[in-house]
């Protein structure tokens, strides 16, 4: 019997020495998933009867949980000594999707971030962000993280579907989920949504400023729920949106602030121990500190060295023009620059890129211009010359 299910779940690497659950201990997980994974664990330990009866109860409670149904059905047939049904054509595809879903859910159970691990994409958070969403596109996992004194801490994590064509949206209609740092722009409630989107949706601001620099097109990237005929969707199912179960969306709704909450879509998420995270953070803190100092300087070449050759601003200005404008302004050399509410994101999708956002206050030291304040985003890239800004823009969130 075990052999049959192993053949079915061959991608799962169910090891005989089943890991004591490594799941982030205090994180919240959705109940049907926990129950399904517990049943698989029981099966793994040879408690077939318990696995079957727990699955039967789970299915009573959640009859639309397709993965639970197929595991249950396969276990029943194995126990009855009957052959598994032949899957061909569309059913074979559905079966493979379910197998893939099982694999990603089980992988997460076996290997989750440690309770104090810091995601490489979010090194420090300004106070204005109470929560942040981080989606591991490769592992189909959406993390809800709380701002704990500037450090993100996992509160909950959920299985999430992504675009049917995978990761790295470039063009309208390519059915991929974008990679980048975004924020939630609004909340669309159930009543406003077609059934496909379930009980709620959080659109995000793809394409962001950097996406536009790279000429990326498309729109309508949301985090949303599922039609009520199913509990969740296949790992790669949408036109680019990130999709969670309706229960999970309900949970998220209490924590997301439209217009504010950052949303990171990453294809290269690493979980760093606090020391490593601190090291990366501190390097970038030094970088931005030096930039601030040089921004105040009367010598334009000091600021210029922070800007890459291929720099482009949000209104299309290239490096020379942009820096010339700054050098020529009346404020040049006559100001103090203060940076507050600094957030540092390890920008996903690139080997060494960071997004640093902050509130910039410029105080004139003469009476020649007004003090000013603006929210800004800077995209920094590291290469042989060190860290340099490749793009700068007003911060789009409130």
């Amino acid at each position, binding site marked *: 019997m075990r052999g*049959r299910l192993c053949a079915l779940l061959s991608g799962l690497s169910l090891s005989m020495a089943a890991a004591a659950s490594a799941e982030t201990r205090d994180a919240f997980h959705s109940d049907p998933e926990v129950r399904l994974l517990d049943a698989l664990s029981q099966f793994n330990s040879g408690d077939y009867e318990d696995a079957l009866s727990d699955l039967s109860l789970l299915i009573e409670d959640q009859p639309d949980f*397709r993965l639970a149904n197929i595991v*249950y059905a396969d276990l029943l047939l194995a126990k009855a000594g009957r*052959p598994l*049904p032949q*899957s061909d054509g569309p059913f074979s595809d*559905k079966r493979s999707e379910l197998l893939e879903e099982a694999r990603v859910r089980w992988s997460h159970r076996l290997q989750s971030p440690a309770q104090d691990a810091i995601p490489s994409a979010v090194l420090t958070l300004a106070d204005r962000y109470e929560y942040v969403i981080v989606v591991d596109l490769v592992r189909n996992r959406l993390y809800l993280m709380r701002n704990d004194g500037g450090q993100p801490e996992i509160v909950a994590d959920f299985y999430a579907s992504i675009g049917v064509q995978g990761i790295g949206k470039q063009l309208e209609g390519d059915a991929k989920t974008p990679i980048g740092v975004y924020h939630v722009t609004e909340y669309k409630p159930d009543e406003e949504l077609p059934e496909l989107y379930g009980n709620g949706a959080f659109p995000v601001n793809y394409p962001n400023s950097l996406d536009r620099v790279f000429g990326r097109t498309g729109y309508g990237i949301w985090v949303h729920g599922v039609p009520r005929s199913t509990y969740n969707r296949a790992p790669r199912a949408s036109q680019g949106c990130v999709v969670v179960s309706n229960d999970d969306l309900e949970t998220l709704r209490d924590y997301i602030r439209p217009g504010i909450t950052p949303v990171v879509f990453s294809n290269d998420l690493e979980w760093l121990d606090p020391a490593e995270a601190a090291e990366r953070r501190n390097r970038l803190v030094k970088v931005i500190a030096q930039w601030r100092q040089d921004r105040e300087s009367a010598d334009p070449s000091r600021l210029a060295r922070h800007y890459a050759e291929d720099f482009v601003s949000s209104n299309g200005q290239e490096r020379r023009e942009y820096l010339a404008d700054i050098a020529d302004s009346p404020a040049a050399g006559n100001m103090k620059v203060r940076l507050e509410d600094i957030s540092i994101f390890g920008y996903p999708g690139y080997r060494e890129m960071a997004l640093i956002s902050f509130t910039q206050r410029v105080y004139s030291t003469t009476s020649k211009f007004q003090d000013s304040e603006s929210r800004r985003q800077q995209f920094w890239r590291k290469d042989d010359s060190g860290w340099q800004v490749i793009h700068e823009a007003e911060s789009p969130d409130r």
Partner: protein
Amino acid sequence: MRLDRRPVAIAALAAALVTLPVHAASISEAQTLIDKGLYKQALQQIDTLLDANPDNTQAKFLHAVAQARMGQTNAAIEAFAALAKAYPDAPEPANNLAVLYAQQGDYEKARRWLESAMSTHPAYATAHRNLGDVYTALAAVAYSRALEQEQSSDLGVDLEMVQSFSGSADRGSATALAQSARSQPAAPSQPRPVMPARNPEPFEPADTADKPLATRPAPAPAATPAQTATAPASQPAAGPTTAPTPAQTVPATAPVAQSAGQSPAEARAAILAAVENWARAWASQDVEGYLNSYADNFYPGDGLSLPQWKAQRRQRVGKPGDIAVRVVNPEVSLQAEDRASVTFRQTYESINYSDQVSKTLTMQRNDGRWLIVRETSQPL
């Protein structure tokens, strides 16, 4: 109908088991009427019996069976439920409740009742078969939800109702096997229920290190496409034989020398035990135990020498994967103090193949052990 709701006492149990000849005759007449489909007459017969003997459990049980067969499902459910409550260790009321719930499409209830029957009688063949069918029905429903396909309304599930009630608490002995056999309808064995037509999936052989289910004799499939060859591919001998057919029996009173130390009853018991061991060794792929059930002068037939046959059996029986073998309604014919034949219905199931045959084992007693000297099968 009056139902006995008092808890079982030994006396009550004994009373249920001990029936006067006239009652035994009436009961078996009623059973015959039911087998023939004459339910109303059967009920009349049983009602008469119950008027005289309101505590006759067999009669109460049979009454419920007749009601079930007539389609009086709710009354039958009530009656069986009362019997199940009064005799919590008896598998028959539980089994029949499962049959009725399955008829109503409540497969989860059917499953629970059957698992309860199996928990007190792990080798109870009828409940075992029914449970497999219920699992299959439940699986069909779950698959249709999982794969978002339309569920075929006719799941083809037709469970076996049991028609006699022993009220005994023994656990899965040869007696239970025999009783389950009696509970079959007198008609030739019904066709096995089938899932909506699907081909079995080709299957990679399981890891030989996998342990089989420890607690139940639940069958699980084998990995061997090779076993789908010809029916019955798993039998070493096939084709025309001179073995006794199922219909043929030698009277039990054939001369059996008493001096060898085994009475006919002892011999029968020993033979049945040997057959059970052989089946168990086969099903659990205990190759050595299986081969040890055969005598040194075993004649394989089919052109195989004994070493060749042994090699073939070693390979087939020991091949990774799971099989299920059941011995149903064994009948022993003693031919001499050290010779007998046993005939039974043998069911065999593996992932790609299942069959039922009438199997006859010719047994010889060597050094106190009954061993197989010939093995033949006939289609049923």
